[in-house]
């Protein structure tokens, strides 16, 4: 069922990478044990800024997870064949991203040993409860889809019929996870930065930009490292999707800024002032807020000029810009600056500490390891399958390779 053995063979490069990730994870786990014994006081969070990097990164990763829908939907609903070779990569990315989300929540909890209380004493009026439900549901759905379709592909049979409705279900479900995550914030009365109806749309728009950006980067990397190519057309289509999403995201941000600054209601403006202008209070995150806005605007140029977007080198840089802009914006600033100023008007400094950052990197390393292992398995299957379709005349000429050899070869190269 899991085809784990395919992840157990690989080149030296593969193992060096895996061991490096495992080392990172081990170091981060050490810091986590420290956090567990000492308390969340090891982080830079405080009474006033009670959510920080962990919850920010959680929010951002929910977006990355939800963005799988941007390849699944065109492929399954509109029969967009270009995405045929990319869909499985997108789905696996979603599985890794959701796992990271759950880990970020877990490391942020003051009492992780009571995590099951959420299900033992379910509170249906709490958005957090529904967020847990939708995230775990999304995880189960995506694991099922990826395993079943990969299994069918490996055996060269049609996937079972029941998987189709599950795939269709995954589309609204993906939207729901990020909507519910936005509801976590926008349903809170006292935090004006978050209490806006466009938060969920903005979350989705930024998700559909950042997720595809990461997926494009991964596809380019996969092509560099292996013989698997998702195809230029797929990358171009995805880049177009990313462009639309990014434009909408910037548009929605401008809507927020207009509403705040034209109405000049202090409650609305002060968060933005502290985030982007620095005219309200000393904000340690000011340069980061400015950087993310700069990257967002700057990335629009290569995105909107088709010739630049089609150039893969420029596209790779653009994707990196989009991804990091949104990772800073959603993954740090939007969450942390919601607490600045606090309801009592205090500006509390927030600077993530070394343990906090190491644990965050550790969760990222878990995600990277999952992506590595998943892609290894998926690509081993895909490459072996493709290699086994060698035209008969090539067999005769001895040029072809059997599936088994191709498999072995692909294991070497992946």
């Amino acid at each position, binding site marked *: *069922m*899991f*085809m*784990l*053995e395919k992840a157990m063979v690989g080149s030296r490069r593969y193992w060096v990478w895996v061991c490096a990730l495992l080392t990172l994870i081990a170091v981060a786990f050490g810091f986590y044990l420290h956090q567990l014994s000492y308390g969340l006081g090891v982080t830079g969070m405080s009474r006033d800024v009670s959510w920080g990097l962990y919850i920010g990164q959680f929010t951002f990763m929910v977006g990355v997870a939800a963005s799988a829908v941007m390849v699944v939907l065109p492929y399954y609903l509109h029969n967009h064949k270009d995405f045929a070779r990319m869909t499985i990569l997108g789905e696996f990315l979603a599985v890794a991203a959701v796992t990271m989300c759950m880990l970020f929540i877990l490391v942020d909890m003051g*009492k992780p*040993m*009571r*995590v*099951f209380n959420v299900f*033992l004493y379910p509170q249906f009026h709490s958005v957090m409860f529904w967020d847990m439900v939708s995230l775990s549901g999304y995880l189960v759905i995506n694991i099922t889809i990826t395993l079943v379709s990969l*299994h069918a592909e*490996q*055996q060269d*049979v*049609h996937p079972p019929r029941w998987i189709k409705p599950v795939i269709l279900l995954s589309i609204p479900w993906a939207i729901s996870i990020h909507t519910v995550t936005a509801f976590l914030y926008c349903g809170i009365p006292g935090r004006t930065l978050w209490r806006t109806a466009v938060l969920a749309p903005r979350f989705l728009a930024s998700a559909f930009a950042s997720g595809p950006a990461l997926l494009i980067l991964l596809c380019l990397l996969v092509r560099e490292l292996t013989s698997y190519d998702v195809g230029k057309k797929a990358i171009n289509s995805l880049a177009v999707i990313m462009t639309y999403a990014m434009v909408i995201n910037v548009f929605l941000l401008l809507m927020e800024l207009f509403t705040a600054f034209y109405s000049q209601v202090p409650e609305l403006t002060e968060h933005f002032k502290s985030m982007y202008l620095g005219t309200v209070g000393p904000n340690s995150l000011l340069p980061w807020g400015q950087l993310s806005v700069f990257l967002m605007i700057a990335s629009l140029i290569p995105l909107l000029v088709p010739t630049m977007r089609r150039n893969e080198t420029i596209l790779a840089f653009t994707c990196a810009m989009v991804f990091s802009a949104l990772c800073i914006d959603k993954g740090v600033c939007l969450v942390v600056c919601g607490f600045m100023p606090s309801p009592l008007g205090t500006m509390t400094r927030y600077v993530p500490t070394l343990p906090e950052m190491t644990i965050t990197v550790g969760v990222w390393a878990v995600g990277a390891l999952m992506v590595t292992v998943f892609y290894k398995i998926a690509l081993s299957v895909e490459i072996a399958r493709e290699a086994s379709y060698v035209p008969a005349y090539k067999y005769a000429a001895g040029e072809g390779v059997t599936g088994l050899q191709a498999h072995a070869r692909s294991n070497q190269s992946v």
Partner: protein
Amino acid sequence: MNALTSFILILVVTGLAFAGGEISSCRVLLDVVLPYAAMAAFLVGLVYRVLKWASSPVPFNIPTTCGQQKSLSWIKSSWIESAHTKLGVAVRMAIEILLFRSLFRNSRAQIRQEGPRLLYSENKWLWLGALAFHWSMLVIVLRHLRFFVEPVPRFILAMDAVDGFFQISAPQLLVTDVVIIVALLFLLQRRLTDPKVRYISLFSDYLALFLLLGIAISGVLMRYFFKVDLEAVKQLAIGLVTFSPIVPASIGALFFVHLTLVSFLLAYLPFSKLVHMGGIFLSPTRNLPNDSRMVRHVNPWNYPVKVHTYQEWEEEFHDKIKAAGLPLERE
């Protein structure tokens, strides 16, 4: 049918233990005689089995190989999967015993209607279930040391802290308790629902599963629901291991069920398939190095063969060969 009879057998044993616990004259039997007898059967039986295996001759070098054998220097051999050194064998055994390497390789054949085609696919569920069960079992057995040893060793408490990480109810829920029951139920349903596995399942296969399930369930019930007096349990346990047994006044009926089933398991183990616990170490297919190209493996019951080697032959006819002008290996 096999499943049903073995289930009934376990039920009968459970019922007897339950009833016996109620009768005070039976308590000595259940608390003292039975555990001693079972332990004796376990130890003697296991030693007997191992010595019997050990004294069986191994006529052939028959390791299972799952990788490239060591041959020419420029062919990369896999030193664990097809171990040719003692170290390789040790590592291979360790992976087999700790991680169930051969079950990891488990596959499933099925006929798909399209075609129809015969398909082989890997199937890790059995591996996962077995791993979950055995590791939980190990942790649970070690955990029971807290009843037999005073003062309780540190590592037991540390293990307990990890196992009971989640703060659910009191006493805190232990993850292994859940895992072992889920794993056993999975292993049982596999035998019952897969027609192929069901066909080859014997009375003893079900008996082992029901026995282990009975032990696990009675233990879980005692820990979380029908409490027993732990102090009395510990007194009984220490009394047993220090050979000064005492019969506590009352512990709770469920305890007798648990103890009787455990005694049953101990006594039954050396004479059942469960003895693979010792057998795994003595399987020639696992513990022999794949070195047939380097070392001569002699069948122990071969009669002594008089060997006349080439060197001896050359020495014998040295002069004649030289005289005939033929080349010699040794001048």
